[in-house]
């Protein structure tokens, strides 16, 4: 169920350049089930900024009623958020949307998790839950540059982790697709989150033979399905009036379900 709650900041650190890890505590953690869901964050109590910010859930700790958000402080809202201190309260609406389908990968099968930049965070909870189910996981992540990378060690605990940086300052020089082209990885399912061009490349390359699940981003108003801000066309009727809402039908879709 969707709840609105003032959650308490447990810890808050800059874990890479302009990338923050925010751990919050609140009852609504108990509602978080699927990896890949998101919350809608009001970063200040007043009117500035007005709208909530959608941020994926990167980690869930049901026992402590804690959950983790990892975000880039870039615009006005996330910059204000980055100033919160332990003990402060943050207004959270969530959990929202539908996440990655775990059940599409059986125990013993292999899942490939492909993330780009700030699309990496939700893959952490996903990877944890897959591994817990007995799934083998590979991680392939792309970042702009070395100083923007994060959570590499944590992911390595769960499975082999390949990193590409656009400027070549770390790992493979180039994009995640360069890693995917050069490494020989065999797997059953792909779960991916990141910039749309990356998602498109993955869809093109793998959607024909593999089960591919993609997490989309779109500018949102309500985050709960009421305002029609975040719609995309369905693949079966790309110019018609059928649609999916990223906030409630997604953010995760099966490749081929919607027009990227």
């Amino acid at each position: 169920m969707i709840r609105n709650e003032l959650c308490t900041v447990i810890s808050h650190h800059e874990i890479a350049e302009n990338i923050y890890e925010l751990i919050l505590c609140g009852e609504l953690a108990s509602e978080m089930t699927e990896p890949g869901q998101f919350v809608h964050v009001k970063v200040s109590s007043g009117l500035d900024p007005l709208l909530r910010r959608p941020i994926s859930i990167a980690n869930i700790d049901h026992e402590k009623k804690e959950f983790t958000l990892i975000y880039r402080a870039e615009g006005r809202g996330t910059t204000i958020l980055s100033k919160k201190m332990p003990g402060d309260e943050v207004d959270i609406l969530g959990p929202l949307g539908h996440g990655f389908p775990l059940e599409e990968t059986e125990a013993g099968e292999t899942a490939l998790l492909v993330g780009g930049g700030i699309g990496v965070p939700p893959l952490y909870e996903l990877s944890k839950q897959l591994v817990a189910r007995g799934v083998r996981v590979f991680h392939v992540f792309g970042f702009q540059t070395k100083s923007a990378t994060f959570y590499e060690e944590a992911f390595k605990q769960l499975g082999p982790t390949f990193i590409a940086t656009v400027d070549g300052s770390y790992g493979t020089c180039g994009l995640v697709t360069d890693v995917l082209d050069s490494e020989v990885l065999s797997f059953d399912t792909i779960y991916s989150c990141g910039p749309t061009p990356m998602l498109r490349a993955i869809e093109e390359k793998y959607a024909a033979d593999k089960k591919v699940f993609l997490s989309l981003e779109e500018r949102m108003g309500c985050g709960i399905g009421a305002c029609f801000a975040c719609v995309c066309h369905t693949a079966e009727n790309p110019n018609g009036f059928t649609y999916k809402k990223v906030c409630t039908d997604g953010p995760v879709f099966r490749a081929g379900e919607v027009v990227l």
Partner: protein
Amino acid sequence: MNRLAVNLPGLKLKNPIMPASGCFGFGKEFGQLYDLSELGAIMIKATTVEPRFGNPTPRVAETSAGMLNAIGLQNPGLDKVLSEELPWLEQFDVPIIANVAGSTEEDYVEVARRISKAPNVHALELNISCPNVKTGGIAFGTIPEVAKSLTAKVKEASSVPVYVKLSPNVTNIVEMAKEVEAGGADGLTMINTLLGMRLDLKTGKPILANRTGGLSGPAIKPVAIRMIYEVSQAVSLPIIGMGGIESAEDVLEYFFAGASAVAVGTANFVDPFVCPKIIKDLTELLDKYGFEHISECIGRSWK
């Protein structure tokens, strides 16, 4: 005595608070969060004869104390609204105000004729002011004679009272209101959004795919208050006020300006529980300022 009850043409409202059209879909999403019967009424999303996908995304952009939207009247079309959305809403004890849109007079008349027969539709809101569609919309809302003629035709076709939604993007809102009154409107709703734009600093291009969009939220409240103040003194139609309402205090300001009920739009996105919250706070506020009944507040600024 219900201190918040308000009677308007076609509408017996248990309280004067309703979600604004386009900000509440057809109620399903909010129905998961609270009992929709708590609301005074519901203004459902604009309905057109044919289904519409609307504009490409991005469709929203944030502004200082406001937001721009260019949804573009996305809706499942009249048939589906009649067969699915409205029947679903019948489970709640809440009158529906159907927002009617179109590209031609015939469109409007067709939607009005059929949707006004739905059992839970107690009034129509004639959307002559949507800034986000290429054809229709804007002309209907900015040329007084065109608005009057459309109002008359819709009024003739409708089985329930017709409220006309005024656009703030005009030189003379009072003139528009008077023409619409002459056309036979039963009430006014105001204001729709102000036409605005934001640019992306990285690309230099508009953030919205549609380029321009409608500005809503607290930023526009002073414009709405001014227009309701002016219009409520010039016509004898009841006004449902809207624009940036997010608290019971705002509701009182709208009533003082001349509104007889209000709608809450953008604030539902910031706090999905805002409507029941305002309803709850409103009675306390009447106590604080010494009013027996909300209707005493109407037009207090000029009475």
